[in-house]
């Protein structure tokens, strides 16, 4: 790689070749051809993202352990948590749907949170964990499949549909899922993968460059 390509960037959406310019804190660079966002300057985002990720991870565990919702019809009660809902659908011979729900609401968010903590915890102490490049690549490719915010809307629609059938008992996980949705949005807004790639450029990891 020649050194003069270091400061070059290409727009992801129109492939316009541009030279990187320094930004003010909080600034966003946009492509002058198609208007796509190119990169951001987010000072101190590593530590802030780590704090948000840890909070989201704790709430996510709570949201998966406790029941989301309970119903009561003529004195008979039934409540379920997310895992229970996936399991129940699996037993109703709806394996495809059950796996789809499991992947998009449990697996992908869990992997995402675990990988973010694995990355950000050492990086915030100025150490580079092994396999950064691989983890960032995985994070980049699974990102579209985490759909906690859509699931949150699904809970609200289910609430309305159930309201005329039975009396509802909101569970702890209902509120925790609301919190997870907000925190994950904050994590996505605060996390700047460019900072992490930048750390990699400064301290080359032998495992990665090999």
């Amino acid at each position, binding site marked *: *790689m020649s050194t003069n*390509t270091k400061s*070059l*960037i*290409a727009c*992801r*959406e*129109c*492939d*316009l*070749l541009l030279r990187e310019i320094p930004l003010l804190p909080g600034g966003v660079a946009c492509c002058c*051809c*198609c*208007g*796509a966002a190119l*990169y951001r300057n987010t000072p101190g985002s590593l530590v802030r993202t780590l704090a948000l990720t840890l909070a989201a991870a704790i709430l996510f565990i709570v949201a998966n352990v406790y029941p*989301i*919702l*309970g*119903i009561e*019809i003529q004195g008979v009660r*039934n409540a*379920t948590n997310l895992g229970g*809902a*996936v399991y*129940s*659908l699996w037993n*109703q011979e*709806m394996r*495809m*749907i059950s796996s*789809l729900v499991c992947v998009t*609401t449990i697996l992908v968010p869990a992997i995402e949170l675990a990988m973010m903590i694995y990355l950000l915890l050492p990086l915030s102490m100025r150490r580079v964990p092994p396999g950064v*490049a*691989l983890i*960032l*690549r995985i994070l*980049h*490719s699974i990102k*579209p499949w985490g*759909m906690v915010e*859509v*699931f949150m*809307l*699904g*809970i*609200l*629609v*289910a609430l*309305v*549909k*159930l309201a*005329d*059938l*039975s009396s509802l008992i909101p569970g702890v996980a209902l509120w925790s899922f609301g919190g997870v949705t907000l925190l994950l949005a904050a994590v996505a807004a605060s996390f700047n993968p*460019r900072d992490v*790639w930048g750390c*990699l*450029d400064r301290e080359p990891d032998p495992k*990665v460059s090999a």
Partner: protein
Amino acid sequence: MMRVTPSAAGLGLCSCRACGLVSRPDPAVGPARCPRCRSPLHFRKPNSVGHCWALLVAAYILYLPANLLPIMETGTLFASRKDTILSGVVHLWETGSWGIAAIVFIASILVPLFKMIALTLLLISVQRRSTWWPMQRARLYRLVDLVGRWSMLDIYVVTLLAALVQIRSLATVRAGTGAIAFGAVVVLTMFAAMKFDPRLIWDPLLKESES
């Protein structure tokens, strides 16, 4: 609208989809990889139009059973009903939940349809190397990418209801076969949108300004 400045690919430079690093791939070395993150490098997503079409046609075909077959079967002491996506929306509307009915209608019916039509338009325009309204088409693609995931809404609603309403002899809800087709439509259109390469929208403009 013309583009005077060259694209990275036009100068033999390739940007990594994963990390964004711009590098000059050496064809003599074999399949190019990003020097920073080792991702495979391509000037444009390989066979993007062909794969996108295949996924899109499959989604169009499955869109029919997704809307015609019941996605939810409800049984209570007094009655049992099978709901398709549309009849579910109508039921919500009739029982007075207009806001929720509108949300479900947009997420489950309008969004998948909009997504498939928009991708069809984008693919045709790219294949014809159209220079027509590139900015609007780029925005359309951004919108497709943004709204696609919200179609999963109905899948989650059915999952929650089918898990909760399992009170034997009083009320039961089961997921219907339409849900499988609907889930497949959502996943296929998401893959199709990922396969599409928005840079193809801008390439014909470049050729025009070069000649």
